């Protein structure tokens, strides 16, 4: 069992309830897309799965561990098994691709080894092997600021492949790409996850991409799961319910206060300028 949520809820310090009593099970090797409108809690859910947030209620099990019970080294060991693909890959612009990819295994490496590899890449072949399926092997010694956005995103993917994670989490991995590249990248990600038996959970804005590439789709709205089924079973009715915008239609509904709370939260946290 890769992921298990029992009644997991998350309330932000501001009082905003991002997730409410989620029950969810994702088996090892499954590939799941999470879709839903902005503010539905997709990013929060992924941060929760990536040990970037702790649930405020319920039980969370990741790769047969409860991350809230782990401290120090054991938590780090769990984190080395979870790979995160970010919306825009967090790579220092001046870093070389080979170093950026090798950084995926910093959790497994000792500090002397990490420092030695910074001076001379110790496993350039491993990095090349991770870049090969992404058509980037020729960029091994290029600098990250010489790459395009799509190439950088693929370097980020190569890094988690090199990390050897058992669970891949992708938060809007293709939102910065053109449609063709987005399609290609998602197909690639799914193929690699399928080949290696890696569990893949991705949040997506584009419904068509989710339905086309992922066997299982979860619809999230206002922190609740609206539907959770095979991609082929998702109906137009499901999607209409997911994206219907009550506040824009002017209809009074129970979700209106949540949006108000969100806006209030935004105003409170917005930076003040002098």
């Amino acid at each position, binding site marked *: 069992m890769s992921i298990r949520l029992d009644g997991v809820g998350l309330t932000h*310090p501001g009082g905003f309830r991002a997730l409410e009593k989620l029950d969810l099970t994702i088996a090892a090797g499954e590939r799941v897309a999470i879709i839903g409108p902005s503010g539905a809690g997709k990013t929060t859910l992924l941060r929760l799965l*990536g*040990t*970037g*947030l*702790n649930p405020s209620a319920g039980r969370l099990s990741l790769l047969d561990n409860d991350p809230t019970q782990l401290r120090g080294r054991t938590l*780090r*060991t*769990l*984190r*080395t*098994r*979870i*790979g*995160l693909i*970010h919306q825009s890959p*967090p*790579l*220092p*612009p*001046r*870093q070389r691709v080979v*170093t950026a990819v090798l*950084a*995926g295994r*910093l*959790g*497994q*490496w000792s*500090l002397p080894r*990490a*420092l030695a590899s*910074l001076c001379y890449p110790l496993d350039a072949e491993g990095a090349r092997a991770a870049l090969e399926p992404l058509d980037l092997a020729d960029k091994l010694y290029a600098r990250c600021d010489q790459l395009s956005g799509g190439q950088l995103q693929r370097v980020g993917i190569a890094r*988690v492949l090199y*990390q050897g*994670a058992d669970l891949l989490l992708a938060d809007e991995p293709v939102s910065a790409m053109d449609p063709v590249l987005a399609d290609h990248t998602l197909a690639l990600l799914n193929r690699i996850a399928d080949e290696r038996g890696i569990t893949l959970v991705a949040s997506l804005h584009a419904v068509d991409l989710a339905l086309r590439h992922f066997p299982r789709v979860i619809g999230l709205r206002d922190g609740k799961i609206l539907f959770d089924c095979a991609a082929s079973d998702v109906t137009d009715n499901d999607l209409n319910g997911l994206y219907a915008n009550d506040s824009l239609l002017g209809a009074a509904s129970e979700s209106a206060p949540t949006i108000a709370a969100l806006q209030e939260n935004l105003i409170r946290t917005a930076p003040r*300028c*002098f």
Partner: protein
Amino acid sequence: MLLTSSAQSHRDPAALPRLLITVLAIALLWPGLVITEFAPAALVDPRNLDVFSHFLAGFWPPNTSPEFLAMLGKATLETLAMATAGLALALLLAIPLSLLASRALSVSALLTGRPSRWASAARYPVRLLLILLRSIPEIVWALLFVRAVGLGPTAGVLAITITYSGMLGKVYAEIYESVDQRPARALMQAGSSRLAAFFYGVVPAAAQELMSYTIYRWECAVRASVIMGFVGAGGLGQMIDLSIRMFAGGEVVSILLTFLVLVLLADQLSTLLRRRLA
């Protein structure tokens, strides 16, 4: 204050705070000029100019006799060695302290976005230590150490080590916090240790600024070692002190020109390394 409601809606909401801060800054700076009796008119007063030009006339031409230049070379080397050794020792102290003091590598911030209260409380003593190290001017340390270890550059090296470790540690910690935090956070989120995340996530982005500041501090250390020479810590400072006492203006100018060359070299080195790291 606000004229009408329509004027209010068109006004930049930041205008009033900016105006208040400007007024406050002037109100704070003006007394400073009054207290220091700042009167630039005295500079161009003919009598003062006369005294000044007589004083300066004694400085030319620079002394270029071979014996003096040999002495000057030796003193320059001593000053450079004092500054470099002091800065190197200061780095040994400053780097670990800056890592401890910086919020950039907070593990608790991974979960909540900001460091936990306990972690901030643990960082505070380190910040306090850095303040303590840099709050006492190096010349006071030099006076102290001259009594402890005797006349000579050792006292200067120790004084530079102590003060500069405080300055470097503070600024390094702030540089780590000023660069993009996402690379280091992503690495720690993937199980990397803090130090490894520092070298892979923070250093690449901060290297240029760290290098530039360190070289600037080295330049300052050269000047500081000169000042400490006045209290007997050796090098160019001791030499300039003697020359001034003996009214040997030519020697003073030669020494000042040497400073100029040293600072020029430091600046060139900084430019070169910055370009290399860009």
